[in-house]
């Protein structure tokens, strides 16, 4: 199957500083792809270039097999949800949703039908005559989604759509967006800096760092087989412990570290760690300590309190080890 969206060698410079450098990726029809990365990694710039709101310095963007670089944003057959929602403050919810259809001169009966469907899908029924200023964050978000739904565009670009919502609402909207996407068979490119959003929603994640792709893979690969130390230290709560060794960098996830003597089999086989801090988080306690000159975090179930300065023995299963090259931080093949 040929890909729905194909980005080849995309580059963008601001004042000779590269924001995006030679990015390549493909998105299949109906796929949910997350562009993940810390702020300033070029993910939003990439999205804007796909939308046509910014022009790349080099590279191509193909949608459904056609190069769209010379097409205006409105002619690329896509919709976009903005971080700030970009709702028109003087128009009612209804007019906000209909804006695109009116601009595209869609006949009135069809407009009404599409409006009704979109409003029902996102549950905005009682609010369609309100102005954006009277809506809560979650409702504004739904208007932005409805605007995207009515357009009937097969490709939807989302630029950090949930970052202005509170934690609980964010979790609800994650599920909702994902189910809308499946229901409508939308192809989605979703920009986020939040790994939970990417992990829980996406079929495929593209992790960017300083304008380059670090890894492109399904969410579970990011957790099980990070390709670089950057990926390892970006994914996970808290991220992977990286311990410099003589010939490589050893990586172990905090949740795979156990304290010896916890009724644990294989006692007396661990290494010693000096405890520096215990951070209780409800279901678990994160114990921070020092081993071999590196900071180690261990996630332990329940509430634990260990005095600062106390020496404990820690261990992990050999299968939980990841190894990276000292130079460049690439994953070493040897450990599979």
């Amino acid at each position, binding site marked *: 199957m040929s890909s729905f969206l194909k980005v080849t060698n995309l580059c963008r410079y601001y004042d000779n500083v590269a924001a995006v450098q030679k990015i390549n990726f493909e998105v299949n029809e109906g796929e949910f792809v997350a562009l993940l990365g810390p702020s300033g990694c070029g993910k939003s710039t990439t999205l804007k270039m796909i939308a046509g709101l910014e022009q790349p310095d080099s590279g191509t963007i193909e949608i459904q097999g056609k190069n769209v670089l010379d097409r205006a*944003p409105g002619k690329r057959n896509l919709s976009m949800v903005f971080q700030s929602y970009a709702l*028109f403050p*003087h128009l009612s919810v209804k007019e906000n949703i209909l804006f695109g259809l009116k*601009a*595209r001169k869609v006949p009135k009966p069809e407009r009404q039908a599409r409006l009704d469907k979109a409003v029902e899908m996102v549950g905005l029924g009682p609010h369609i005559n309100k102005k954006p*200023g009277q809506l809560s964050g979650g409702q504004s978000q739904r208007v932005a989604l409805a605007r995207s739904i009515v357009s009937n565009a097969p490709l939807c670009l989302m630029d950090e759509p949930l970052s202005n919502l509170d934690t609980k609402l964010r979790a609800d909207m994650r599920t909702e967006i994902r189910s809308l996407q499946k229901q409508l068979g939308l192809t989605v490119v979703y920009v986020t800096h939040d790994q939970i959003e990417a992990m829980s929603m996406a079929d495929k994640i593209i992790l960017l760092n300083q304008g380059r792709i670090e890894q492109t893979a399904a969410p579970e690969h990011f957790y099980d087989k990070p390709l670089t130390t950057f990926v390892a230290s970006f994914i996970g709560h808290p991220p992977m412990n990286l311990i410099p060794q003589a010939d490589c960098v050893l990586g172990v996830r905090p949740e795979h570290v156990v304290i010896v003597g916890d009724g644990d089999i294989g006692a007396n086989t661990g290494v010693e760690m000096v405890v520096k801090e215990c951070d209780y988080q409800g279901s678990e306690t994160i114990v921070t300590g020092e081993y071999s000159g590196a900071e180690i975090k261990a996630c332990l179930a329940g509430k634990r309190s260990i005095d600062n300065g106390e020496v404990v023995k820690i261990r992990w299963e050999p299968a939980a080890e990841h190894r990276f090259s000292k130079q460049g931080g690439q994953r070493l093949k040897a450990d599979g």
Partner: protein
Amino acid sequence: MANSLFPLTAYTIYSTMQSSKQIHAWLLLLPAMCLLVAFTHYPVVKTIARSFYGFGTRWESKPTLENYRYLLEDDVLMQVLYNSFLYAAITVPVSIVLAIAMALWVNGKLAGKGLLRTAYFTPTVLPMISVANIWLFFYSPEIGLLNKLLGLVGHGGINWLGDPSVALYSLMAMTIWKEAGFFMIFYLAALQTIDRNLYDAAAIENASSWTVFRRITFPLLMPTTLFVLVNALLNAFKLVDHLFILTKGGPNNASNLLLYYIFENAFSFFDTAYASALTVLLLVVLVVLALLQFGVIEKRVHYR
């Protein structure tokens, strides 16, 4: 506090503090109040009183409506009122449209837009008297720039300020030239507060630039338009300086405006009583216009 040295009851301390605070407050208000009363309130009251009690420059003992009755009979006043409203009806919308157009133009991506903004704004910083002198040079019949240009194409020239059918329009052109740049600054400031993302969202929807202007930019500029409209209308009735330089209301009152007519009555004909009645009329006109504007337009203005 000095008061606390004396054995006073709580109540007297309270009331002393209250009255000392009161005196303090009044003292702080005093300088501004003196100026306001001397130069605003007293003249207003006196003007209204004179319009009822005055006759020429004298005061009558009994109130009379004679001055107001004469308002209705005064043919020159009718001419002046017609001029004033025509002057407002043309200069206000034209300068607003020009101001929006210029603001959109210099808000875009444009080489040398700083220079352009300054150029548009320059007429505003000039005093009206200097502006009138500059335009006198344009409008002069023999040596004026406009007629010289017309001469180049073989036209005999127009008596811009001397022809009764042209004089008022010549004044309007100059007023628009002066006012539009000033209003542009407000529109420019308002344009810069509009969220860029709205334009991105519109671009994604393939909205034409006319649709974007009609459905996004213009409605979001409405609060500014209301503000500018009120100011422009008030200015249309308040500006008078240029008449002294250019036409003195002539020829035959063809370019006379209400405020200049008041000046003429008060200081050329020395009929201060009638001038007072005219002033009250001007005041009423301005109040009614302001009420109309806020009442009608506010309903259609979007405030964030």
